[in-house]
Structure formats: C-alpha cells, structure tokens
C-alpha cells in the first residue's frame, strides 16, 4: 500500500514540477548550473569507466573465441553491440544513479532539513519547479554523455584488442562496421532520454519528501539510488520489448 501511495505522490509531484514556472532569467542560470553539476562534472567518471569496461568486454570476447571457424572480426562486432545496446545507456545510467542520484537527493534533502524549501514556499515560489525542472532540462544533455561513453567504450575495446595482441586493428574495425543496424543507436538514445528523466525525478522525489535530520538525508540518498536503479532496469526491460522484440 505504501508503494502505491508513493507512486501516486510521485506523479502528483511531476504535475507540480511543470506548473507555475520560475522567472526566465533565474531559470536560465539554474539550468546552466545544473548542466555543470550533473553533466560536466560526471564526464570524468564516465570517461574512465567507459574506456576500461570497453577494453574488458573485448578482452573477454577474444579470450572466449577458441574455434578457428569464428572470424576475428567478432571481437569488434561483440564490443560494438555490447557497448551501444547495453553498456553505455544502461550500465552508465546505473553508475549515474549513484553519482547524480545521491547528489540530487542529498542536496534537496539538506534543503528540506534546513527549511530552505519552506523559505522558497513562503516567498511564493513553486519550489518543485525551482528545484526539479532545471534538473530535467539539464539532463536533456544526458544522451551526449552516453554518446561519449559509446565512443570511448569501443575505443577502449580497440586499444585492448590491438595492443593486447588479441586481433588486428583492421579486423576489429571491420567487426565494428559489420552488420550495423542504425536503429540500435536510435534505441539506445531513446533509452537514454527515458533514463535521464528517471535520474532527474526519482532522486528529487526522495529528497523533496524526506523528513527528519542529517541521518535521514543519508538514508534517503541510499533509497534513491536503489529505487532509481530498479526503475531504470524495469524501464530498460519494457523499452527493449517495445522497440526490439
């Protein structure tokens, strides 16, 4: 019953987020600030993880090919498919649920605990629009992060394959180009937009409606990470059935 109530409260919150907009000049500044905090400050970890996980995917693939009947280009092909279809959009989003999600929950939760949200409301400001809407807009740039993750994942695979001596550069590149279906990219970016919306709103919900003190802010951040990850995984399943099956 509690979960149904929370789902209802979440959708009611979304309704409030898009009502009574904040003044344009202030909103513009908030969006730039959120782009910096949520997108630009996340690039370092995305670059690091993408490069090395891409490398590991290609090494694992190469090491598991025993049969001489399987061509070397399979390493590039498998790396591309893994990175574009799942690793970049889904795996990175789970990592971002930890990084961005806990940041959003703890920052909004701290504002709740220290009455800063009450201060906004008393001034006649729609605090949900002020706090959550700029995050949703900023995370429209999230597919850009996923694009970087795709590129670096495949690049990491190429570096690991070629410099690890598992296959030639030509075979890897031929594998990347082999049987490429452009719709897979569309599917990955559609997923990224959905995950971006989840990343912006679920942690905001957990932070905005938390009660208690500093300890509860920590608990809310953990809960936000768990729920954001669960919802991303479920959404991934539904989108995959709808778009690929």
């Amino acid at each position, binding site marked *: 019953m509690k979960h149904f109530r929370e789902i209802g409260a979440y959708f009611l919150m979304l309704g409030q987020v898009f009502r009574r907009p904040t003044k344009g000049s202030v909103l513009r500044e908030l969006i730039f600030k959120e782009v910096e905090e949520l997108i630009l400050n996340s690039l370092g970890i995305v670059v690091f993880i993408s490069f090395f996980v891409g490398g590991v995917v290609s090494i694992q693939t190469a090491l598991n090919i025993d049969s001489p009947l399987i061509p070397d280009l399979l390493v590039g092909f498998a790396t591309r498919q893994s990175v574009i279809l799942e690793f970049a959009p889904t795996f990175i989003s789970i990592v971002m649920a930890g990084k961005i999600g806990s940041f959003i929950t703890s920052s909004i939760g701290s504002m709740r605990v220290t009455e*800063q949200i*009450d*201060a906004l409301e*008393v*001034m*006649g400001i729609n605090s949900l629009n002020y706090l959550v809407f700029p995050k949703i807009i900023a995370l429209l740039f999230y597919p850009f992060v996923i694009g970087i993750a795709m590129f670096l994942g495949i690049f990491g695979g190429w570096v690991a394959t070629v410099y690890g001596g598992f296959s030639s550069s030509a075979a890897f590149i031929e594998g990347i180009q082999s049987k490429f279906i452009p719709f897979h990219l569309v599917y990955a970016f559609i997923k990224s937009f959905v995950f971006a919306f989840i990343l912006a709103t679920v942690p905001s919900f957990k932070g905005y409606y938390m009660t208690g003190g500093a300890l509860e802010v920590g608990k809310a951040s953990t809960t936000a990470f768990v729920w954001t990850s669960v919802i991303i995984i479920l959404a991934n399943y539904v989108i995959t059935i709808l778009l690929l099956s």
Partner: protein
Amino acid sequence: MIRVKHLHKQFGETSILKDISTDFQQGKTNLIIGGSGSGKTVFLKCLLGLYSPDGGQIYYADRLLSDMDNNARKQLRQKIGMVFQGGALFDSMTVEENVMFPLRMFTDMSHQEMLHQVNEVLSRVNLNEANKKFPSEISGGMQKRVAIARAIVNNPRYLFCDEPNSGLDPKTAMVIDNLIMEITQEYNMTTIINTHDMNSVMEIGQNIVFLEHGCVAWEGDSTTIFNAEKQEVLDFVYSSNLFKKIRDIQRQK
C-alpha cells in the same frame, strides 16, 4: 493587521490548535509564546498558509486567506518576510545573493538597483562587510541578521519570525530583538514572533498571545504578563531561575 477567528487544526485524531481567536496588530511586535508542544509552530505555519486549517478563518487585512486563489496567495506571499529558526539561508549563495534573491524573483530591477537595495538593507542590519561570504563562513548571529535582511528587502507588510533568538548568546539575542522591533516600527509592519525566550518577551512583547495545549490561554503585553491571573502563564514566566530570583528579591523588599 492579521485577524484569526476560531482556528482549528488537527493531525489525525490529535487536535493541535483548538478554537484560536486573536488579532495581530500592525506596527507592533506580536509574540506567540508557550511551552514546547503548545502548538506555536503549527499556528505560525497555518498563518503562513503552509498548513491548511481544519476550521476557522485567517484574515490578512480583511481578506480571507482560504478564499484566495493561487495568484492572490502568490501576491500575498510576496508581501510576507519570514525569518526561520535556523536562518534557512541558501548555502550555495553568498550573503549578497541570498538577500538579492527575492528581488531577482519578483522585481524587474536592474542589477545595480538590486545591489543598491541589498547594500541598504545589509547596512540597516549592521552587516556591511559580509557581502561576498557564504552562510557557512559567518556566525549564527550574522546569519540571523542576513535572514532578517532577506525578509525585509522586498518591503514586506508582514514579518514572521520563528524563534529568532534560538542558539544565540544573550547579548546577540538582544541585538536581534531590538533590530526586529525597530524595523517593525520603521516599516509599519505586522510582525509575528514565535518564541519561548522570556528575555524577548520582556524586551519586545508589545502584544503577547500565550498558547497552552493549542488554546489561547492569555493575551496581554510585557507589562501585564507578570501580574497575569492564569497560573499557567506565571509558571511559564517564572520557569526561568533569573525571573524567580527577581520575584523573590522583590517579595523580600
């Protein structure tokens, strides 16, 4: 002026406010006092519109709060300044940005005009050299003064303060009290202060409402509170050892 008639508020089965009726006068410091759990904070939040009452009426200058639509409420809230217990300053903003915030949100002033206004109110609260500091870099007393500056920067008609002295040393608390009283008279505002500090009661209690178990148990001012007939009020007043000793000395004389 704010008029409250038969206000009732309950959470679940528990009644927090029971049939509260009182007037808060313009140009005066109106104090809501009472022990912990007497309903002071809930009363203040009802007055601010943060809680919806379950019964009764609240009038802001003869306009019924519950009859106001969203636009009217928004306009009313722009006429309200609030000083929160902990200051509630935005910690990602400097002192200057905090005070400028209401102006940026609700006026079309240029940056220079806003800066001029901000400097004026900051000097009014005797805070001239902290513009570029963040709230975490200034003392508790300074934070309270910034919160007061933010509350009055938009020339509000109503000023609400929730325990403005909590966590402050007695000397700083007195400075804040006097500042609030001076500002109230200067701007002719209706000021409502939620407190359980007897020093504040003595210093700025021009109109006092004493709450007990969610009811108005007594009303008066700082000169009449020591002769109140209600035992609950006297218990509250003389819960301070200092006041108890003064009373004993006076009795001995």
